């Protein structure tokens, strides 16, 4: 009796899910397009300059003039959030690109470089994965200093092992495929086979992981900024906005609310899109 209920519940959920999910996916894509427009044309959307100080307008609550209110220097919070999107997007994409490049290089080397190299690289990878990535990020920032570019490195390096492991697994699958064997049999060089056959075929699941890790990188980047270890003032990076707002939120709640909504909605949208890509890809696989 109760088992039937469970089964019904499972089928119901499965049939109900795609519909519900697709609404979420559409909303997420729309939101991400909005973010992209903000990144490309911040001046067209922002209502004020993000850096002009106006002491007379300090700490004003949200109003028709200042949609998200103003900070303690009288800067318009809405315009700062709009201009800040470029930082989060560059951190998300930049760190992921670093991880992607590193992962492809190490993964392809391990997957195609023979047994000894494979073992050596993968044990190295296991050890790196056993360390929390925040430790690595903190060491990188401590030694290289703060700033946007160093933030990219601090986050990107820590993500490389995940990508390397996935690329290697994919390479091993593709490597044993018939067409690679024939290419080798035709006498193409190893490099040519890797670049023209193995990497293009192994890359699909890697892009799914990349989408998901864009969200993770945005979160990690905003965390470093919040700790004042990322981009420096007066950059309107969202984590930094919250960090600056933290000391005055008792009198100005809006400074602690709107930038956080921006971060969370962006990460949420990227996650929803990434998960749906993952689901679609897995369905195609099976």
């Amino acid at each position, binding site marked *: 009796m*109760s*088992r039937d209920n*469970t089964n019904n*519940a*499972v089928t*119901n*959920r499965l049939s*109900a899910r795609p519909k519900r999910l697709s609404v979420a996916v559409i909303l997420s894509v729309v939101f991400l397009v909005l973010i992209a427009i903000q990144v490309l044309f911040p001046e067209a959307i922002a209502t004020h300059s993000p850096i002009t100080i106006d002491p007379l307008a300090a700490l004003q609550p949200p109003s028709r003039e200042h949609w998200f209110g103003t900070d303690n220097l009288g800067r318009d919070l809405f315009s700062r959030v709009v201009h800040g999107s470029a930082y989060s997007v560059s951190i998300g994409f930049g760190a992921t690109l670093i991880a992607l490049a590193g992962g492809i290089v190490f993964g392809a080397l391990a997957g195609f470089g023979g047994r000894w190299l494979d073992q050596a690289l993968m044990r190295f990878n296991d*050890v*790196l*994965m*056993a*360390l*929390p*990535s*925040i*430790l690595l990020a*903190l*060491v*990188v*920032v*401590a*030694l*290289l200093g703060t700033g946007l570019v160093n933030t990219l490195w601090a986050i990107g390096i820590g993500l490389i092992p995940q990508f390397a492991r996935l690329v290697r697994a994919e390479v091993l699958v593709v490597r044993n495929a018939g067409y690679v064997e024939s290419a080798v049999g035709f006498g193409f060089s190893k490099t040519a086979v890797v670049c023209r056959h193995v990497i293009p075929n192994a890359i699909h699941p890697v892009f799914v992981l990349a989408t998901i890790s864009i*969200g993770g990188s945005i*979160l990690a980047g*905003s*965390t470093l900024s*919040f*700790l*004042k*270890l990322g981009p420096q003032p007066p950059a309107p990076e969202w*984590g930094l906005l*919250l960090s600056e*707002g*933290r000391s005055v*939120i*008792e009198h100005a*709640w809006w400074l*602690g*609310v709107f930038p*956080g909504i921006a*971060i*969370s*909605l962006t*990460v*949420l949208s990227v*996650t*929803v899109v990434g998960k749906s890509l993952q689901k679609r890809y897995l369905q195609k696989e099976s």
Partner: protein
Amino acid sequence: MPLQSILVSLSRRVALGVVVLWFTVTLTFAFLQIVPGDPAALLFGGDEIPTEEQLEEVRRDWGLERPVHEQYLLYIERLVHGDLGRSYQQRTEVATLLYSGVWSTVILAVAGLVLAVVISVPLATLTAGSSTLLRRFAFVFELVTISMPSFWIGIILILVFSFTLNWFPIVALDNPLSLVLPAATIALGLVGQLSQVMRESIERALKEPFILTARSRGLSDGSVRWGHALKHSYIPAATITGTFAGNVLTGVVVTETVFGRPGLGTITVAAITTHDIPLVLGVVIVSAAFFVLVNILVDLSYGLVDKRIGSSV
């Protein structure tokens, strides 16, 4: 479970742990070598230009005038003897500085972890394999908390519960109530991931034949879930300890900063902003050691939960 197999698996895990630690130490040493500029000035840190005497002191402590491999051996030797070096900015031993913050941080982390488990276990157990309203709520709740940066969760909790409702103080450190919001901040950062992993494995367990057997014996749905299926979620949940412990660590650093609590997190952030490199390296090495220890303990606990694992190793 034979004693010998426990010892073998234990020594294997300890060996792996030692490798991870050695690697961390070597990595920090390699970073020091790569960064351009005078290593003595880098290690001295701070924003002021150090005097020649001060630099000389650093060079003596780290053996900087010697060849690289001797510096490396000196570094390892010092660490093996438990000497984490000196902070030139604060003119104290790194170990003393870390010890001053460790208790406050451990209390916070443990409180956050316990709260996360207390929330996740019922959430996952009650909603596994069902399509109730609660399940839908849990799905949205997990997705949202995963997408929120934990420092923002902390800010929202402060805004709502301290400033608006006045329920919890955040400045009075001797008041135990001041622990509630920081612990909740850490817990909410962990709940999403933890309950998703647990629910997945409970759902898998619910499809197993022994569940059907249990049901046919007339057990209620509740005792099937809590008495039989829940157990199966322990190992998958514990396997993510790696990322999980990393999240706890991030949570602690961020939460201490948001709430202005003293502890290892605030010490670390301050050390990075003042370029106090010996202190940063000390924090990293101690956290890595702690992290390795936790992983070994978790691996050992598998054998206690699942007898098959203990005897097969």
